[in-house]
């Protein structure tokens, strides 16, 4: 019993410590906001790595998520509500939930884990120590470009996912239900509000930042050799995914 309580205590202290360390890292990164121009080359590299290279995956996930949303919604509407509202129902779900959350979860797997693995390998091979020894702050050199790119690129990827998702939903509506494009997109337009899109983009902004920050934090705090890097990769994905879902709930409560 005592050991159980000790374990809870130790885990609670570790949670508080790690949360504090993540905010300290975020604060230190924000301090370098004035050096974005100086770091532009690294930032562009990360915008490519985090954003552009994720486009094919985001298109794939967005297309099928939209298609599945359309099938499920049609099933629920059947016999109760006209299919004329299918476009509105699926587009709202895509804008406020499916687009940002699925994009962020894909990003957590592809980007968060790869940041943690890359920085973790740099940590265990003393490359991060080498940066410090060369009087270069790893926070500016490594964390700033990745975190900034996370904040910028996940919302942009979400916009792509939204667009592709709606096209996927329309594809299913057209092929399965023979729904004309005027009716499908007409209902999308009738129920479209800028707030729906903005709320999804605000969510994506937070999720992108969370994914990159967690990846950087876990990478920087990696210990041990190859095994440590493997564990860091898993930890980054699990932690990012959990925080994305937690933040999704909090933001949904705040925004709606």
């Amino acid at each position, binding site marked *: 019993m005592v050991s159980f309580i000790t374990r809870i205590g130790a885990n609670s202290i570790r949670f508080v410590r790690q949360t504090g360390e993540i905010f300290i890292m975020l604060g230190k990164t924000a301090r370098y906001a004035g050096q974005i121009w100086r770091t532009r080359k690294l930032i562009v590299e990360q915008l490519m790595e985090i954003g552009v290279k994720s486009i094919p995956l985001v298109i794939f996930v967005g297309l099928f998520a939209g298609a599945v949303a359309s099938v499920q919604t049609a099933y629920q509407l059947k016999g109760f509500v006209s299919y004329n509202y299918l476009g509105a129902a699926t587009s709202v779900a895509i804008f406020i939930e499916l687009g940002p959350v699925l994009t962020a979860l894909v990003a957590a797997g592809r980007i968060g884990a790869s940041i943690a693995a890359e920085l973790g390998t*740099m940590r265990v*091979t*003393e*490359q991060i*120590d*080498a940066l*410090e*020894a*060369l*009087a*270069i*702050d790893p926070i500016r050199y490594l964390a700033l470009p990745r975190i900034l790119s996370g904040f910028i690129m996940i919302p942009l990827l979400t916009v792509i996912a939204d667009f592709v998702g709606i096209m996927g939903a329309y594809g299913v509506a057209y092929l399965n239900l023979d729904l004309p494009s005027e009716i499908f997109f007409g209902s999308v337009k009738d129920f479209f509000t800028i707030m729906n899109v903005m709320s999804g983009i605000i969510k994506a902004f937070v999720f992108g930042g969370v994914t990159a920050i967690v990846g950087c934090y876990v990478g920087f705090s990696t210990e041990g050799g190859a095994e440590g890097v493997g564990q860091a990769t898993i930890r980054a994905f699990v932690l990012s995914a959990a925080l994305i879902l937690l933040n999704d709930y909090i933001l949904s409560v705040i925004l709606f």
Partner: protein
Amino acid sequence: MIEINDLHKSFGSKVVLRGVNLNIENGERLVIIGRSGCGKSVLLKHIINLLQPDKGYILVDEIAIRKVGQKDLFFLRKQFGFLFQGAALFDSMTVAENISLPLVEHTNLSQGEMDRKVAEKLDLVGLPGIEKLKPSELSGGMKKRVGLARAIILDPKYILYDEPTTGLDPIMAANIDKLIVRLSEQLKVTSIVVTHDMQSVEKVADRVVMLHNGIIIYSGTVSDLKTTNNEVVHQFVNAEAEGPIQPKPHKY
């Protein structure tokens, strides 16, 4: 000059340094010897504040390195070159990008001037013309020499070597030793070398100190090292199995 005063460091329950006192004069080639895991690399990392002591302090040119702000710390670190045990080259960069990184970050040199400096340092470490190679294409000895070229690119006042010959064949190790002496003489730098390679010690050291059980137990010249009455030092220097140093049984 570097002054290390009463330095203590523990990692969890493992006490590594328990009161190290050491002065390093300008221009000196100091070699720190000791068994694997005795804290030599930990001591070296404290000198440039990569690790922070639990107790005690280090003065670099009379400045307490732990007390300074980040700007001053980076200014002090630019006075140092650090050769890491595994060279710690950035594997996403070419050799030239690795070596020129400090120039890109800390100077306003043109690309042409940087290329010239990189070529000059590569020449100095005996590896001309390998600018475009990636670290994955280099042998262990070449990596160490590229690491050294990077460490001296800002013409530092101090060079710290962490196990520079470990894992190298004897000829490559001898080349690295020769390079350490040559850099020390040509660039007039202060060199601090951490090693347990006694052949290297004989070739490189002006003065040798031995770290054992977290403290400095010996300080003297290489010739004194061979005639010392200290049983621990004697056993280590002569690589004897019998003596006061015994491997601890491993706990499983």
